[in-house]
């Protein structure tokens, strides 16, 4: 019994209702068998039509009830499963927003999407199947066997003995086959990956002149895969073999045993037939459970996965009002941030900047530039130190008001799969069209948009018109233009662009920086000339902080990086 299922609102009631229906169903199964056995016996003894007609009618009524009850059980469980799984989906999505982009990144957004869209239906299937199957398993065989015992003790005893043997066998087979499958899991995974690996690497194979000959490898590996799979299946199919074997063998044993008793005259035809008819129904719940085994285990795993995500710790959040006033200051006081494995990502940062300063952030890869920007954006929090805004201290920037004052331009801004217009209006859905046009003109997108067949309604993003890296940056810039922001954060916005586009984009960005508090993290040193002051990071430490003039003329990390850039890999 999965105790998590009992924790939902109304789940105990559902279990009780389905349980009652199951008991009623067991009664219907017995009644149905009684009258079918009776009808057959009556016909066998050549009794008149009216007599066996009545038995058949009663059989049919019981049969009808049995099927209706089954239907009702399924329907009730199904509706409950939908309610529960949609509730979990809602919590999952809420949680996703709570944990924010950083934790999503480490967990893998693909995993979360799969969980919310494939995991939830699996969990639903599990709840839907588990409740009626579990209750049938718990109630029906027991009720039937008690009734069978009243008809024929030996048959009842046979059935009682077979059930635990069957279950022990299933467990043993399950263990053995799991072991066998695990043993070859590695080679199995490698083989199954081979095809998709080959497809993904096709262009590379082509460039290497190896793609044609690789066809043979596909064939060989596919066959190896088949042989390995067959070996695993031999064991995997054992459990359903055992189920079939024990259930039909017991029916056969009971039939022969009843035959013997009939010859000896120790039982009559009617109860014998009755027991024979009921025997398969005794095993039906186990067989159903076996058939749905994979669906239920998959769903159960999905449920655990969901609970794991829901239990994740979200970054600390603040709801205090937070904004930088005119002539105010923004300062870090000993801010430190640790990574997942306890390593220091940012070490004891101290700096103070004015409310509209433009701050460059440079450092080699892994020095902590991106972490700092994400921390400033409030997507991630810090463990030690304080952020001071106008002399007020905060222990996190994960704050809705702070977020709404931000413009954040990453290296690859998100282009949503919708119209250009909706993309531009993303932060301000109510922005007047004229303003959107104006923003598009400012970032140099207007002519391009005019050239689209649907102009501002043209769909972009996944499944829509593809944009170049430069065009994507322009969209992101226009987006931020449409809303009031005090703080602009840039995380390497131009490194992936070709030099000409970078030049053009820079012309657009530079004037936008005025009257904002700007943090600009980049490897591209040319931006530093446009900054008021520069933070130089090295292995998470702030090693230099000063103006371009100061830093470019003093020995140190900044000058080193500047000289390397100016040399540009020339021999």
């Amino acid at each position: 019994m999965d105790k998590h299922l009992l924790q939902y609102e109304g789940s105990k009631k559902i279990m009780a209702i389905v349980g009652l229906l199951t008991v009623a169903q067991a009664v219907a199964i017995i009644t149905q068998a009684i009258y079918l056995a009776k009808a057959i016996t009556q016909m066998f003894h050549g009794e008149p039509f009216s007599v066996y007609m009545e038995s058949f009618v009663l059989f049919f009524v019981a049969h009808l009830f049995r099927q209706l009850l089954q239907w009702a059980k399924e329907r009730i469980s199904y509706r409950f499963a939908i309610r529960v799984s949609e509730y979990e989906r809602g919590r999952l999505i809420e949680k996703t927003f709570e944990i924010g982009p950083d934790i999503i990144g480490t967990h893998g957004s693909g995993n979360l999407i799969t969980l919310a869209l494939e995991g939830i239906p699996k969990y639903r299937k599990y709840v839907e199947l588990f409740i009626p199957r579990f209750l049938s398993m718990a109630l029906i065989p027991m009720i039937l066997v008690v009734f069978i015992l009243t008809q024929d003790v030996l048959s009842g005893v046979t059935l009682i003995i077979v059930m635990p043997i069957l279950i022990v066998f299933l467990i043993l087979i399950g263990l053995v086959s799991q072991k066998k499958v695990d043993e070859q899991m590695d080679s199995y995974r490698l083989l199954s990956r081979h095809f998709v690996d080959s497809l993904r690497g096709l262009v590379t194979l082509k460039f290497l002149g190896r793609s044609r000959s690789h066809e043979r490898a596909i064939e060989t590996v596919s066959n190896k895969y088949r042989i390995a799979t067959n070996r695993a299946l031999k064991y995997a199919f054992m459990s359903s073999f055992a189920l079939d074997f024990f259930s039909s063998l017991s029916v056969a044993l009971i039939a022969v045993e009843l035959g013997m008793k009939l010859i000896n005259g120790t039982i009559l035809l009617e109860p014998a037939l009755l027991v024979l008819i009921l025997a398969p129904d005794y095993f039906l719940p186990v067989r159903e459970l076996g058939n749905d085994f994979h669906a239920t285990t998959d769903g159960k795993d999905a449920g655990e996965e969901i609970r794991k995500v829901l239990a994740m710790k979200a970054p600390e959040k603040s709801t205090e009002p937070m904004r930088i006033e005119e002539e105010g200051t923004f300062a870090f006081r000993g801010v430190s941030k640790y990574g997942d494995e306890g390593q220091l990502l940012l070490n004891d940062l101290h700096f103070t900047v004015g409310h509209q300063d433009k701050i460059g952030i440079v450092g080699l890869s892994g020095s902590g530039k991106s972490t700092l920007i994400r921390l400033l954006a409030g997507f991630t929090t810090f463990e030690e130190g304080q952020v001071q805004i106008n002399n007020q201290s905060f222990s996190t920037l994960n704050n809705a008001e702070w977020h709404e004052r931000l413009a954040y331009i990453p290296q690859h801004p998100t282009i949503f799969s919708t119209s250009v217009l909706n993309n531009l209006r993303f932060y301000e859905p109510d922005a007047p069209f004229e303003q959107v046009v104006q923003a598009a003109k400012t970032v140099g997108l207007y002519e391009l948009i005019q050239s689209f067949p649907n102009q501002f309604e043209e769909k972009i993003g996944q499944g829509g018109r593809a944009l170049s890296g430069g065009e994507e940056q322009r969209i992101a810039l226009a987006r931020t233009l449409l809303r009031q922001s005090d703080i602009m954060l840039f995380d390497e916005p131009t490194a992936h662009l070709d030099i000409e586009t970078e030049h053009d984009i820079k012309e657009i960005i530079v004037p936008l920086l005025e009257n904002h508090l700007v943090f600009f993290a980049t490897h591209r040193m040319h931006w530093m000339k446009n900054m008021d002051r520069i933070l130089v990071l090295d292995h998470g430490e702030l090693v230099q902080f000063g103006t371009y003039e100061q830093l470019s003329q003093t020995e140190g990390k900044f000058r080193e990086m500047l000289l390397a850039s100016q040399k540009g890999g020339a021999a």
Partner: protein
Amino acid sequence: MNYTQQYILPYVRKYKAAMGWTVFFGFLALLSAALLTFTSGYLISRTSERPETILLVYIPIVMVRTFGISRSVFRYVERLLGHNAVLKILADMRVKLYRALESQALFIRERFKTGDLLGTLADDIEHLQDVYIRTIFPTLIGLMMLVFAIGSLLTVDPLFAFFMLVAMSVVAFVYPLISLYLFKKHQTRAKTLHGQLYDTLTDALFGISDWIISGRKKQFVDGFLTDAASSVDAERKLDEWNQTRTMQLQIFTGVLVIIVGFWAGNAAADGLIAPTYIAAFTLAIMPIMEAIIPISHAVERIPVYEQSLQRIEKIEETMNEPIPAQIDIAAIKQPVISFENVTFRYPGSEGPAVEQIDLTIRHGEKVAILGKSGAGKSTLLQLLLGQFIPTEGHVRIDQYEAHQFGDDIFEVASVLNQKPYLFATSVLNNIRLGRADATEEEIEHVVEHVGLRAYLATLENGLHTQMEESGQRFSGGERQRIALSRILLKNDPIVVLDEPTVGLDPETERDLVHTMLENLQQQTVIYITHHLTAIEQMDTIIFMDEGKIDMIGSHEQLYETNARYRRLYELDRAL
């Protein structure tokens, strides 16, 4: 239905023996179940007449025991045979799909603008095993059972057999067709809605920073959950139909039990069958129906496969015919590349992608090509590799037209692109793809040259280290170095570097470009780039714009004569 002709029937024909046996054993399994009921019903009725000796019911007893065991054995054999046959088919389909993709490998991205098409296709092939396992086999087995049941009944009472044929056809044909119709109707909607959910959520998670900053989180969550609810609602219609159908078919089975019971009672009264067979016939109808009822579920799944088949068909439709090699590659030692007044226009597009390109690249020359996206760099590259035939003019490598090389072009020119793929095997095997007969010493030699030796030495298994899932273990720069090793091993006279440094940080970029040029001194290098890293070392720099050569010259020439170049150079170097 034409998918059936193209993708199902040929395989059915090819593996008809294996499939035939599968269906046969599946039929035997279900037949055993029916006969177990039939013979036990008979046995009990016969023994109730208290025969003199047990020997008179010896045969029914043996049969009951046999059928009690045989069902599970046959079923086990059926499943093993079926999966084996299907896995053989999948192997064939993989090869066929691979062949189709291979012929158009360089155009897949442009032709099929979908996310992870290749992963999806690989999954599609996997899903197609359900065509056989979950649709074809159960349907055929169910129909065989129907034929058998009716056939046996014909020998007893032809008229009643005919009646039962009609009645059971409702289950075997009418219900499956209704199910198929309803499923198709609702499934399309359910699928579309689910697809939309997928797109919305993917978008939202990749853009979650924007959602958080925008302060519109609640709006998204509410909208998404409403969409999810309507998607679930569409699925609910299908699932509930399934539950209702099962109930209806079970009730119908009850009706058939009564009908068969009546018939058996009458037949016994008329002396058509012995009374001992009443129970046998009446009870056997249930396991027979259990074989026929699943046909509905098997048939309604057909639309599920269509989408997979559609995707595969689309790939196979655009398959290119391989061009037979016509050129003696071995004779090309120091090739000269020439573009003679080359113009290329994509079919169906208005303006040319490249226009009037005149360019000669002597052997050993180092040429950098720059330009904004859409300026014509890639088209130029495809023309050089003979993948496009010029609309006007000629692209030649020595005296041969580039497109005459076919796939042999890659014996003359190596390409290192932005994301060279590293296969899920050892580093050694990945490098050896450059030349299959390379010795381990040769490989160690190139590894030394590309500057990977020290790093590999720190790994426990050195060259034999596995690349791991998608090669997470190696950084971008290291991956490019592994790919460069392949190219050095391949040792073609022309090397194309197609933006190999995008996404690398400047330090890594500078080091990598330096290593590349140092190792490619003898070869012609065509370096498509977005930055001006090591640009001083190039003999010729070409800036493309709108399909034309906008600037051309050496670094010194351009720096002195071209103000725009100077400005870009100073920007790049932060001068």
